[in-house]
């Protein structure tokens, strides 16, 4: 029997520094592959990370970036071409660029180059997720609904950054998740990057079967709470490498889920395997490809 894949749902590569998030001087596709192949044991066996969803540097996508959407994704495009069996392209969608030609590029990258995930970042790109106050809500719907409609048409999940005030509070995912029940949404970091919104993330996921949570930055007790709240089928491993190191992130997930209480929750191995890769394989439609 073959060992199920480990899939990292959130990584970045860039040949230059990320001047906004702050890491550098570069993190090449080869650096990422080296991290994926670093010596480590997972569930008692030597294990590499089989595949990673790879996004450009977030800093290249800010509203003041001089780069076009295609330029922002050029290095990722070249890299997935070099490592098609290991890297899966991800698209960071600055919603304000959607009408400036990004939509056409998105469709091309998905259909011709197998890009498989959207990533939106309300904090970085400065908008509210759709809320019910008419003016703010309407502006947000105009920005984001075309992206969600495109994701639905292409069968692509949307990763949403969460973890700080005011734009990236996970409770605000609830409304759009209900409006697009057939679009899979991944709440990045379980809402815990700068502040701790894990419980809010899980309330949203509990209410919306199309909502998943991603593990990077999340503390062990919140990973445990996640699986107790929504089960192991909608929790996906992500490292957020760089700046985080995949082995440390894998250790954190494995120990939180696998070890006996109070360190972990004693989840059986098949549940851990789902979190480490099985769930992402489904979200990325890898099983049927």
């Amino acid at each position, binding site marked *: 029997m073959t060992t199920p894949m480990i899939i990292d749902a959130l990584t970045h590569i860039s040949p230059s520094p*990320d001047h906004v998030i*702050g*890491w*550098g*001087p*570069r*993190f090449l596709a080869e650096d990422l592959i080296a*991290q994926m192949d670093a010596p480590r044991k997972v569930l008692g066996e030597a294990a590499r990370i089989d595949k990673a969803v790879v996004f450009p540097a977030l800093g290249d996508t800010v509203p003041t970036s001089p780069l076009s959407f295609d330029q922002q994704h050029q290095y990722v495009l070249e890299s997935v071409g070099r490592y098609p069996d290991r890297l899966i392209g991800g698209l960071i969608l600055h919603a304000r660029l959607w009408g400036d030609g990004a939509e056409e590029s998105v469709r091309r990258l998905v259909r011709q180059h197998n890009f498989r995930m959207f990533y939106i970042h309300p904090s970085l790109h400065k908008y509210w997720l759709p809320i019910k106050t008419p003016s703010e809500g309407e502006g947000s719907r105009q920005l984001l609904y075309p992206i969600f409609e495109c994701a639905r048409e292409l069968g692509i999940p949307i990763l949403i950054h969460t973890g*700080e005030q005011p734009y990236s509070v996970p409770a605000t995912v609830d409304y759009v998740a209900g409006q697009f029940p057939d679009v899979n949404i991944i709440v990045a970091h379980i809402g*815990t*990057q*700068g*502040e*701790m919104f894990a419980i809010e993330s899980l309330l949203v996921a509990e209410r919306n079967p199309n909502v998943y949570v991603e593990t990077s*930055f999340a*503390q*062990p*007790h919140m990973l445990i709470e996640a699986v107790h709240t929504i089960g192991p089928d909608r929790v996906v491993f992500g490292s957020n*490498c*760089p*700046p*985080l*190191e995949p*082995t*440390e992130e894998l*250790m*954190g997930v494995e*120990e*939180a889920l696998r*070890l006996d*209480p*109070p*360190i*972990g929750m004693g989840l059986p191995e098949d549940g851990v395997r789902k979190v480490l890769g099985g769930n992402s394989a489904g979200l990325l439609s890898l099983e049927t490809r």
Partner: protein
Amino acid sequence: MTEAIIDPHCHIIPHREPVWGWGPRFTVERLIAMMDADYDVMGETKHVEKAVVMTGLGLTAVGHRSLLEAHQYVLESIKKYPDRLYLNPVINPRAWVPNELDLVRQWKDQYNVCMMKLHPSMHNYYLPSYGPYPGEESKKLTYPVFELAKELGLPIMIHMGESPYSIPAQIAPIAETFPDVPILCAHSGANNIPSNALDAILLARTHENVYLGTSWVQMPEVVQMYYAIGPNKIFYESDCSPRAMAPSLRLVTNLHLAAPLGVGASRDDVYKMIGGNVSTLCHIVA
């Protein structure tokens, strides 16, 4: 310099923790097993040689126990493993200051006392403020603990990580009043608010006697910490249990990696952070 790994932040309890709720237990034997597990430290297999243990915090907050009753299991455990374990008595100032503090003086040599712990959130008090309210009341609660620490040459570890009692900047006034008492800022303020670590970094940068612990801190803030205050003021801590030691240790040893994952810290500097600094501050010979 020592290349021993010292974990200065552990908790053991023979039953469910009554406030945090974790359980069913975390015995000293399980802690020792975790210390003896294999850890990859910069390419070498290492073990955690010494640990500083605290009781389950809830025992100090609810149930009206005496200082002795709250520490019974920890004291027995240190008697069993005197070469591996050191004691960090958790002081509830509302319950035990000043009447029971003398016990710490008695325990110092008998039970390897190497620091004392304050937990403003668990015990519901503000650290002394610059203003009179709640400053004066807080001084009555906390100054006796600091005076004892000064007398015994012990550092004080202070929990930090949430509003309203445990925001790192609140340490500043008492750090200035007792400049010769080293203060170990547990979790660097990141326990429940990760970005509070930036506040702790400023505190440590401006207060010579403040040191920063790494449990619950996220890697971007650990990197900032390294550049802001250097390896001599950072200490690895796991908060085991409920945290595991492996990822907590890896977080700090990853500083050895080149950017952007680490900062290229030297092997010596990493060993300072995972044992050397605590060895010096707490007089732990390893």
